[in-house]
């Protein structure tokens, strides 16, 4: 519980002919953390298995097909028959070429539809002009403008002032009109200027050159062609969706299978190799060693050599935390911060004990605790993936109910229907603030000292008693000295303050010897750390304060009676919901901070490398 899983350093040696079997066995066992081999003179890096190339090629094709078809790889697939590599390759490549043909055809059709519908649009626009399309030929001496103008009557009157010779076709819409104006090329600039004055908006008719006859004659034909193309497009889309339906399960299953196979085939890249043999070095949980060795030997008919090596100084041992199931949820906090190193004490158990308590102290309200308990329990059912996180919050909610009972609070109220809730200590800002503050400080003293004791044990194991004594015991002396001083000056015990000074002086000397100047500089920090636990009170107070305000506000509405009772209920629900939200966030973050900043700094180094066994996802 307090230690990470014990690891063995292992070396596996064998002829290359047995490598595939060895890899397969290790992959299935999922217990071996392979150390990547660095190239040295005698031991080259092993090359991947031959089939890796084939597998990678098919895998890439499968993935590209899936992304074309929009298949979600994470979906569960129905179990189906698995194809052999050769057969799969043929199938996948046939699928790919089929799809590609479909996609190409789709592309052609789409561009044809685009072109035709553009033409159709232009024709529809000038249809009302009743003009033959032959007019839009590129003439040598004529220039034409087609488009909309505003204020048509005025426009018509002012054309002769620009050019004596012109042709005009028009169709009027209200005050504006669609026009086709033909002028001599020599006057085209002047005509353009005139048109500008009437907010001319031209229509693109470049597509129409070369088509003969009236627009209406072409419109029907084009529309028919487009609808035929659209139908074709639908057919192809249906074909693609058929392909998708038929192959979805097969593709997903094989993608998963091939990914695993590829991982196995590429595993030798982490191994060392000579001409005809391979070397795997790695880490195994000690308890799994015998089982692994037996299995490897039986699979390869004793052609493989597997041995435990002594752990040397400077070896970076991978860390796999080992905690009972209840506590395991709290490993979340270690992942968030940093894994402990192999030799260090794993503080997960302490977090399990203290996190909910600190959280509960801050939120501390029976009503709030019960509400969050129900909410998180439902959320846990709804999102099983974040189960660990919600477990933590459920524990925290239970602690909240417990502290709520201590403080005698239910949704901020201290009495329910005239019945006064029993309590040990009150958090109501009107009384008992000093005892509450003292209580929070005592929690701080205990927590920080537990941290120091763990630090002492860590140092004891790593560097021996003398160093541990120097580095950690100084703090105890300092605290004891400060406590004696405080008690003697407050005249609670009758002892000369000199004893306190003496203890503090010893503490300072020990700290200087243990940690040097750094220790001296850090002396005030321990009092800062303990004072920091006063937040347990402070955050609680703010939450209680808000709750009381909400209750008083609602009470005012209730007393007014009538329709305002509804408003009162609304105030109660919204106010407490907001208060719970803020309280949860604040309590969670501050409880976390007390652990990371105040508690961990007393003993924790961290920086452990996570244990990633070969074959595990």
């Amino acid at each position, binding site marked *: 519980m307090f230690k990470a899983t014990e690891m063995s350093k292992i070396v596996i040696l064998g002829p290359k002919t047995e490598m595939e079997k060895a890899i397969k066995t290790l992959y299935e066992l999922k217990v071996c953390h392979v150390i990547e081999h660095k190239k040295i003179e005698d031991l080259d890096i092993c090359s991947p298995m031959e089939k890796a190339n084939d597998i990678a090629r098919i895998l890439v094709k499968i993935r590209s097909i899936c992304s074309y078809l929009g298949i979600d790889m994470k979906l569960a697939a129905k179990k189906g028959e698995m194809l052999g590599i050769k057969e799969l390759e043929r199938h996948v490549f046939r699928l790919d070429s089929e799809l590609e043909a479909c996609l190409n055809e789709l592309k052609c059709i789409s561009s044809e539809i685009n072109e035709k519908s553009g033409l159709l649009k232009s024709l529809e626009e000038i249809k009302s002009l009743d003009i033959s399309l032959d007019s839009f030929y590129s003439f040598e001496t004529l220039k034409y403008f087609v488009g909309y103008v505003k204020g048509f009557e005025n426009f018509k009157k002012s054309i002769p002032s620009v050019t004596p010779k012109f042709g005009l076709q028009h169709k009027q819409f209200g005050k504006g009109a669609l026009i086709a104006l033909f002028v001599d090329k020599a006057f085209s600039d002047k005509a353009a200027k005139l048109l500008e004055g009437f907010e001319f908006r031209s229509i693109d008719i470049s597509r129409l050159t070369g088509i003969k006859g009236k627009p209406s004659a072409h419109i029907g034909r084009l529309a028919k062609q487009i609808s035929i193309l659209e139908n074709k497009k639908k057919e192809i889309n249906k074909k693609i969706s058929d392909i998708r339906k038929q192959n979805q399960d097969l593709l997903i299953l094989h993608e998963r299978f091939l990914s695993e196979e590829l991982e196995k085939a590429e595993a030798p890249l982490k191994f060392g190799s000579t001409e005809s043999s391979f070397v795997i070095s790695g880490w195994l949980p000690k308890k799994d060693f015998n089982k692994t060795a037996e299995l490897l030997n039986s699979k390869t008919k004793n052609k493989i050599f597997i041995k435990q090596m002594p752990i040397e100084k400077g070896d970076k041992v991978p860390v796999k935390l080992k905690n009972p199931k209840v506590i395991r949820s709290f490993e979340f906090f270690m992942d*968030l911060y940093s894994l402990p190193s192999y030799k260090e004490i794993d503080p997960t158990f302490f977090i399990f004990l203290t996190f909910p308590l600190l959280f509960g102290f801050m939120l501390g309200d029976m009503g709030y605790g019960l509400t969050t308990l129900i909410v998180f329990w439902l959320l846990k059912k709804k999102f099983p993936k974040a189960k660990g996180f919600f477990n933590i919050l459920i524990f925290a909610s239970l602690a909240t109910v417990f502290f709520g009972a201590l403080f005698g609070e239910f949704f901020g109220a201290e009495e329910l229907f005239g019945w006064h809730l029993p309590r040990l200590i009150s958090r109501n800002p009107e009384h008992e603030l000093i005892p509450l503050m003292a209580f929070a400080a005592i929690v701080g003293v205990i927590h920080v000292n537990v941290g120091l004791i763990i630090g002492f044990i860590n140092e004891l194991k790593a560097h021996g008693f003398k160093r541990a004594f120097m580095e950690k015991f100084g703090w105890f002396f300092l605290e004891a000295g400060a406590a004696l001083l405080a008690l003697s000056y407050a005249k609670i015990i009758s002892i000369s303050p000199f004893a306190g000074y003496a203890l503090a002086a010893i503490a300072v000397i020990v700290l200087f010897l243990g940690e040097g100047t750094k220790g001296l500089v850090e002396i005030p920090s321990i009092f*800062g750390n303990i*004072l920091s636990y*006063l937040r347990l009170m*402070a955050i609680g*107070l703010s939450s209680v304060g808000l709750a009381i305000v909400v209750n008083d506000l609602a009470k005012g509405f209730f007393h007014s009676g009538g329709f305002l009772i509804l408003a009162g209920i609304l105030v109660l629900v919204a106010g407490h919901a907001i208060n719970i939200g803020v309280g949860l966030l604040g309590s969670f973050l*501050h409880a*976390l901070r007390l652990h990371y900043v105040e508690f961990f700094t007393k003993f924790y180094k961290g920086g452990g490398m996570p244990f990633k066994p070969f074959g595990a996802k």
Partner: protein
Amino acid sequence: MVDVGNVGIVAISAAFALGCSAFAAAWAEKAIGTAAIGAMAEKEELFGKGLILTVIPETIVIFGLVIAILILGLAGG
């Protein structure tokens, strides 16, 4: 001049203790928060650490609150 009396001065002192320390904490959090968000833009998994670092200066307010309560104690409730 309005005569605020002893209780008034005590109350103002308490307000100063809390207000100034809250301002200091806010200032510190602003600087840390900016840097944390910058770091998070580079590496999203720093969210947890950024959040923790951002709440660290909140201790300052708590010291302010404690002092304020002690000062109010002087007023005799």
